[in-house]
């Protein structure tokens, strides 16, 4: 039978892997079940069973860089889940950007109202997090430099000068729908990040 000390040892090991609470609970239960089975069915001692389980999970729990634009290191299993979430977030933000860019192209006045409403919504959401959800300034700072936002910013810095060169015009940057699409993308991403924060789902905010 596994002792309390054994369980603490498993917990300590998994905590060192910086797993989010949801993944931690699931992996912890899996570890306990796997070790128990090795102990009872195969008559292994706890250290042997624990070692074997760690070896089985070695690849999934290997610490890797969370994202190309992040210095944070997380377990590979967490990265897989995170990247899936990121992909979905980017798809949603891209969809909105495309719609907003099209609206801008056809009617700038309508676009202005919608964009204004979106920014207001973002601001209200931010205030809600600061006031009711105990969001700290450092957390906000982390959100502002979120890998997905940095990716968008980098892309913007690469594409914007190109649009000016390609169209070789004296037009203001404001007049290109593409620029507005980048802004929309960034605002939608931030709203989604805050939404995930409300649901306590890991999106690399802390």
């Amino acid at each position, binding site marked *: 039978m596994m002792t309390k000390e054994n369980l603490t040892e498993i917990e300590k090991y998994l905590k060192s892997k910086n797993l989010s609470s949801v993944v931690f609970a*699931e992996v912890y*239960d899996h570890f306990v079940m796997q070790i128990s089975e090795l102990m009872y069915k195969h008559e292994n001692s706890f250290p042997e069973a624990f070692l074997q389980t760690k070896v089985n*999970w070695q690849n*999934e729990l290997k610490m890797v860089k969370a994202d190309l634009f992040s210095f944070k290191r997380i377990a590979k299993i967490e990265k897989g889940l995170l990247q899936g979430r990121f992909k979905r977030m980017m798809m949603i933000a891209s969809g909105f950007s495309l719609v907003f860019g099209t609206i801008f192209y056809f009617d700038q006045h309508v676009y202005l109202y919608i964009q204004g409403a979106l920014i207001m919504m973002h601001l209200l959401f931010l205030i809600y997090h600061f006031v009711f959800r105990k969001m700290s300034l450092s957390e906000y700072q982390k959100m502002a430099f979120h890998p997905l936002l940095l990716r968008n910013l980098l892309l913007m810095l690469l594409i914007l000068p190109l649009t000016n060169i390609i169209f070789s015009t004296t037009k203001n940057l404001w007049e290109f729908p593409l620029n507005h699409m980048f802004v929309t993308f960034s605002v939608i991403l931030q709203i989604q990040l805050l939404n995930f924060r409300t649901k306590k789902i890991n999106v690399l905010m802390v």
Partner: protein
Amino acid sequence: MYGYQITQRAKELTEGELEMTEGALYPLLHKLEADGIIKAEVQEINGRSRKYYLLTDNGKKQQATQEDEMRSYVFNLKTIFDI
């Protein structure tokens, strides 16, 4: 069923032929959950949280469709190899 149980059941049903790695299983389960194919229920077992996965109605429909497709695929393969 919960994660560990799924890996064991798969191993048992395929007599050890199919060994699901945990790294492949959990991301897949979470993706299916996000897609609404399965839903999760958390229960406290011996002081630990255990996540049980269940098929949603949509998931059951998908399962039936996929099973039909697979059967037809196996049938066609069998027909080809039996020629």
